[in-house]
Structure formats: structure tokens, C-alpha cells
């Protein structure tokens, strides 16, 4: 089974129809476990119960960057390999990524209010994530501005790859600039600085959110394929002379 085999939308549809229920079930179970563990996690000695926002905030923030990565790969698929499903994947991922980014910003701001004393700070990490959110919205606007999907796909692919420059800036902004947002504490050289009591629920939530993204992404891709089929049928019907 390779990517080429999936180039046939019908095959993709039948395969995902089989996988999706399992994926959705796995997502629901892991989310339930992760939420239970997060609720049971001890309070932080400084932050108290607000530390639990982390279990939602961090997976959302990770996913906001991961989704742009998926879109960049899809963009390469569109421009280089002309994979027929690559632009479907890119188009389906954009709103999901925008939602994750929005949630990361909102949860971060709610967490920042009790901890930093402000909802918003013009700090490097926060600003670069806000730019990411604006770029998601611009990309969605681009998809919606052009009727022909294949034409929009190539333009969006170029823009996605240009925007991918922002991803390393977001990732390393906390290391490059001395900012309010704390530096990386989970994936770092020399091991995680997080205690196991927080790390395990966080990782479970991260996996659960990734599965959630994959489920939503595949479902959105199916919808997009079906939407294009409906459009093609409508155009075919409109071009036929009335009998």
C-alpha cells in the first residue's frame, strides 16, 4: 500500500470508510483516558489547579504547527508529484489547523490571565502563533476566493510553502528571544523537565489530539471529494441540453 495507490479517490473513499470508525473510537477512548488522568493530576505547588489548562493548551499548540507541516507536505505533493489527493488534503486541513491554533491562543490567554496577570502579551511566541493563525485565515480566504479547485490548489501550495518558514520561528522563538512564554520543557536536550505525574497525561492528550486531527482530516477529505463529485455532476447536468 503506497501513496500512489491512494491516488484513486474511490479507493481512498472505501479505505477510509473502513478505517474511520476505528480511528474515531480510538480517539474517543484516548481522549476519555487523557481527560480523566488530567483531572486526577495533582495541583501544581505554584500554579494550583490552573496547571490543568496545560493538558489542553499544549496539544493544541503542537497540533497547530503539525497541521501546517501536513499542509506543507501536501503542497509538495501538489506541486512536485501532482498527487490528485494532495490538494484535497491541503484544503481539508486548513480549517482544522485554524481551529487548533485558535484554541491554543484562547487557552493560552485564559492561562496567562491568572499566571502572568494579562490575557495578552506581545511576546515572540504569542506573536508568531498569532501570525500563524492569520496565515491560516488567509489561506482559507484564498481557497474560497477561487472557484476552480485545481487552480486554487497550486496557488495555495505556493503560499503554504512560503508560510512554512514561520514554523521553525514559532518553535524556536522561546529559545532565541528571552520572553515571557516559558522555554521548551517537554522535547528538549537532556530530557523533559516535567514531573511524571504531569508528563504522562500530557503525552496521552497529545496522542489523543493527534488522532482527533487524523480522524477529522480524513473525514473532511472524504467530504471534499464528495463535494467535488457533486459539483462535477451539477456542471455536467447544466451543460446538457434540456430534452
Amino acid at each position: 500500500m503506497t501513496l500512489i495507490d491512494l491516488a484513486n479517490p474511490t479507493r481512498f473513499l472505501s479505505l477510509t470508510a473502513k478505517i474511520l470508525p476505528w480511528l474515531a473510537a480510538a480517539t474517543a477512548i484516548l481522549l476519555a483516558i487523557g481527560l480523566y488522568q488530567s483531572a486526577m493530576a495533582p495541583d501544581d505547588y505554584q500554579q494550583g489547579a490552573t496547571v490543568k489548562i496545560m493538558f489542553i493548551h499544549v496539544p493544541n499548540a503542537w497540533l497547530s504547527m503539525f497541521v501546517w507541516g501536513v499542509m506543507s507536505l501536501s503542497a509538495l505533493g501538489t506541486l512536485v508529484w501532482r498527487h490528485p489527493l494532495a490538494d484535497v488534503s491541503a484544503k481539508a486541513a486548513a480549517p482544522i489547523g485554524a481551529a487548533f491554533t485558535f484554541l491554543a491562543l484562547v487557552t493560552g490567554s485564559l492561562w496567562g490571565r491568572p499566571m502572568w496577570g494579562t490575557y495578552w502579551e506581545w511576546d515572540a511566541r504569542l506573536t508568531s502563533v498569532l501570525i500563524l493563525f492569520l496565515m491560516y485565515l488567509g489561506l482559507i480566504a484564498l481557497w474560497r476566493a477561487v472557484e476552480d479547485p485545481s487552480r486554487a490548489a497550486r496557488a495555495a501550495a505556493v503560499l503554504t510553502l512560503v508560510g512554512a518558514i514561520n514554523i521553525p520561528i514559532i518553535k524556536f522563538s522561546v529559545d532565541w528571544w528571552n520572553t515571557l512564554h516559558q522555554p521548551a520543557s517537554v522535547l528538549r536536550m537532556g530530557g523533559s523537565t516535567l514531573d511524571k505525574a504531569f508528563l504522562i497525561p500530557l503525552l496521552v492528550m497529545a496522542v489523543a489530539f493527534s488522532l482527533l486531527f487524523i480522524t477529522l482530516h480524513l473525514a473532511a477529505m472524504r467530504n471534499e471529494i464528495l463535494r467535488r463529485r457533486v459539483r462535477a455532476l451539477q456542471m455536467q447536468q447544466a451543460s446538457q441540453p434540456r430534452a
Partner: protein
Amino acid sequence: MTALLALLRRDIQVALRVGGGALIGVLFFLIVVVLMPFAVGPDLALLKKLGPAILWLGALLASLLTLDRLFAADHDDGSLDLLTMSRTPLELICLTKAIAHWLVAGLPLIVATPILGLLLNLDGDATVAVALTLLAGTPALTFTGMIGAALAVALRRGGLLLAVLVLPLSIPVLIFGVAASNAAVLEPAGFGAPLSILCALSLAGLVIGPLAAAASLRHGLD
């Protein structure tokens, strides 16, 4: 090379002649800067503090508004198709067009900066600093904006879509441009680092902009 030089000359000439509209950008810049004191009040101390930010914002908007001329006119009269089909690499053609555009639309903004600095009560050092940062930073604006202009012409959509696509990309330039200008006023030692980053952004734009613009032109004009 001769083809590129000819293209450079042609673009500059077309922009300067009647119907080219190159200097409208400067006029817009002037009007935006003149609007600011009406908005924030004619408080000279405040204007002095906000001056670099106002000048940068005005330059950003002015260069954004002139962007759609970069490819649109050539696309309308068909010469863009000839350029895409020529033997010269499209990336170099895009680069040449961007340089020509910067010479007629970006450079006049920098020339106008000292006069506008007077209106905003900036002293000599600050004005020179702002002009220097604009000199280092506006090429980056032109190069990133060129990507948006190429997308807009390939999609036959201009105006607001172009602004929405280009403005997020230009935020880093704005941040470091204003940081360098403010550093020149407050603490001269901190001027070098943001200025170097601005130059780096322009050089990175010089590489990425023409490549991305050529790619979107090639894929868009079929």
C-alpha cells in the same frame, strides 16, 4: 543579461510615463502620514515617539498598494505571456521586475522620509535611522509582496485578497524595522542587530520571492 537590462529599463520607463502611476505610492505615503496627527492629536512629543512607527506603517501600506501594478499591467496587455515563454529563466525575470518596481515605488518613499520626518517632529538622527531601516527593509517588502502579486494575477483576484495574503508575511519586517528605528532614538548601541536582521530578511526575500512568484506564475497562467 542584456535582456534583463532591457526589461529593467522598460519597466522603469513604463512606470514613470503617463498611466504608470509610480509616484502615486509616495502621495499615498504622504497622506497616510498627514492623517496620523489628526487621529492621535497634534501632540509633538507623542508624535516624536510614534514617528518611526507611523513612517514604517505608511511605507508598508504604500508599498502594498502599488504591488498589484507589478504584474497586472503586463498581464492585461499580454506581455507577461511573452516573458513567461522567453528563454530567460522566469525567476530572473521576476527578480528584475521586482528590482525595477522597488526603484520606482520603494526608493521614492525613502527619499520622502526626511520631509515627512519633519512633519512628525523627528530629529536628524532619528530621521536618518528611519530612512536607513527603510532602505534595508523595503526590498523585503517588495520581494514578499511579489509572491502575493503573482498569486493575485494568476488567480485574477486582486485587492483585498492580496493584502490579506501579504500582510502577515510582512510582520517580521515591520517588527525589526520599528525596533531598529526606536533603538536609534533611545539607545544607539541596540541599532546594529535589528538592522542586520532587516538586511537578512531582504536577502532571504531576494532568494525566496522570485522563486515563489515564478512558481505561481508558471502554474497559474495555463
